[in-house]
């Protein structure tokens, strides 16, 4: 049977369950994009509404952090970053603007490339922008511990790493939030494990399904959530067992814990959340760009009608934003959700909602 036929079969099963109206949040930006790219909504009954969550690391990066990163660039450091961060507009413009004005911004595929850069330019400060959820953090942690053990003097990291479970807890505890079920991120779950979501069905009665990123994976996840809602028995269903284990990856977590400590961090749209992110441990403070550079207090930015904050919380759809598709497009984005290839607004724009 072809993939298309398998997908149709699953879609028929979902329809046959006669699902009541429900809102499923896909937490991860990669899910949002796969759903758009494969037109998965066309296979689902109209009663199922899929909305994007706060799972694009670029989108949830706070203005205060964007402001600090551009300040660091303007102070002469070479910025090593993943590509998605380059065009995000902060209070002092984007890294792309800074690059056009002469600062050096290098796009990396692996954080370890930033160490090569530091060795190549021993007279320059090289700053790695550490952005991402649990999936990305282990590689950043390895990079930091490598920099420390090799005694690199001109390397530092600006870390704004975030944790998925605390953000989910805030979202589902919000009385304004109407999420009936969660499609949980496949890649993050390889690190944190299926067990990390147990509190969600137990304490909040909300079904969870961990899914991979092919169309079939996503439909399997949706099918599980529909069955859980219809049967009234919420649980954590691991629909991605070929990659995700109950315990996750303890070795990767140990690596992260040796370098980072849990901290209160600032999220776009959600604000300062307790214990929702990571900061460098004291023994690595000499590699912390936050203290290494003299940073002015963040300035405010007026994003006009942009409602990225609401979109990230699942309280609004991209198409609800007055700027969507007119003032804000991938060519000239206002909000971060339109910039990143994983952003929910970019997905809605590209693939037609």
């Amino acid at each position, binding site marked *: 049977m072809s993939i*298309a036929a398998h997908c149709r079969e699953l879609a028929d099963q979902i329809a046959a369950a006669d699902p009541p109206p429900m809102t499923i949040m896909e937490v991860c930006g990669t899910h949002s994009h796969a759903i*758009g790219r494969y037109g998965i909504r066309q296979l689902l009954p109209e009663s199922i509404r899929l909305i994007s969550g706060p799972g694009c690391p670029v989108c949830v990066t706070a203005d205060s952090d964007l402001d600090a990163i551009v300040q660091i660039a303007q102070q002469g450091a070479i910025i090593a970053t993943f590509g998605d961060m380059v065009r995000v507009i902060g209070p002092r413009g984007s890294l792309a603007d800074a690059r056009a004005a002469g600062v050096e911004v290098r796009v990396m595929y692996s954080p370890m490339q930033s160490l090569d850069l530091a060795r190549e330019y021993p007279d320059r400060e090289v700053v790695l922008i550490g952005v991402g959820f649990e999936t990305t953090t282990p590689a950043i942690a390895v990079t930091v511990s490598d920099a420390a053990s090799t005694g690199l003097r001109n390397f530092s990291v600006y870390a704004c790493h975030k944790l998925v479970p605390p953000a989910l807890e805030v979202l589902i505890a919000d009385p304004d939030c109407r999420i009936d079920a969660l499609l949980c991120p496949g*890649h993050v779950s390889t690190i944190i494990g299926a067990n990390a979501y147990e509190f969600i069905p137990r304490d909040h009665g909300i079904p969870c399904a961990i899914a991979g990123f092919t169309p079939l994976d996503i439909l399997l996840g949706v099918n599980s959530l529909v069955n859980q809602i219809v049967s009234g028995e919420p649980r954590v269903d691991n629909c991605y067992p070929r990659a995700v284990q109950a315990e996750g990856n303890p070795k990767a977590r140990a690596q992260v814990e040796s370098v980072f400590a849990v901290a209160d961090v600032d999220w776009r749209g959600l604000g300062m959340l307790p214990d929702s992110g990571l900061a460098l441990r004291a023994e690595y403070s000499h590699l912390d760009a936050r203290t290494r550079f003299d940073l002015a207090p963040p300035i405010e930015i007026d994003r006009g009608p942009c409602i990225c904050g609401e979109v990230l919380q699942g309280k609004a759809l991209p198409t609800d934003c007055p700027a969507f598709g007119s003032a804000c497009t991938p060519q000239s984005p206002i909000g971060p959700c339109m910039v990143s290839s994983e952003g929910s607004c970019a997905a809605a724009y590209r693939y037609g909602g």
Partner: protein
Amino acid sequence: MAGKRHPMHHQPTDQTIGLGHGSGGAAMQQLIRDELLSVLPGQNPDALEDAAVLDLPPGRIAFTTDSFTVQPLEFPGGNIGHLAVHGTVNDLAMRGARPLYLSVGMIIEEGLPLDTLRRIVASLGEAAHDADVSIVAGDTKVVGRGQADGIFINTSGIGTCGPHAPSVAAARPGDLVLVNGTMGDHGVAVMIAREDLQVTADLRSDTAALYSLVEPMLAAGGEGIHTLRDLTRGGLAAGLNEIASSSGVGISVDSRAIPVRPEVGGVCEILGLSPYAVANEGKLVAMVAPDAADAVLEAMREHPLGADAAIIGEATDARTAERGAGATGLVRVTTAIGTTRVLELPAGELLPRIC
């Protein structure tokens, strides 16, 4: 100022290009004579004149210009010299014109290794020879370090038009959409070379001169070939969107019919890019009347540059093309699972994602 060294400027050596090579003096004449003219085909007694004097056959001519910059300058499957020839002769070929003459202008950054320049110029000459086009005019400038990126090349080309000139604005509803092979090979090969990605697959640029393919296509399809477009920057997605908006049609393609090498698809998947938005340098799309499409496809498949040619979709009435939320929505693609979505115009720089 003689003898005073600017800290940024290295003295010319026999190993690299120096500012002296662009001064108009002896060093420059030697560079032009020894390194450029000797390896370029089509040089004539006018080579050092201020302008070339050309014989042109009667009829209309096509004329185009393009500038080339790429990093790295050399990549698997070619270098900037190949691109500078292929890019311009292909633009001529897309109007059904046989390329005849090229001009080549080079802006070289001080410090470019002479061996690199030699290889680029040799490739330029080889590509021109293979494309059966003469380089009849040229110019060389050398600029200081940091004022160029190794070398920039501009080429302008003249070709003679045939009886029928396909146009980006001439596609009609019902036309079939043909491509001559796999999408995204060039862009992915360059990206892997630029970023030094550890990929073991043999990925090479598809850079090629397309007139020898276009000629039999036109012979087979004649005026049934409404549009030809080479799929360079922005790839298939940009090409189809340009045709749709210029011609006022919708276009519907099926991803299951679009040829993509599995390794190109794999690299794109990892980097979060679409093979449909990545550049090609030896690929074209043709909008062909349905009654001519089979003959054109057959002519393409008989040519080495069209061995993987395929019909990937059709043009539709723009008024019935579904609208996307934000994009123009004129071009739609059927996905691997049989659903459809907008194939958007690529936005800006291709940037690899976080996860």
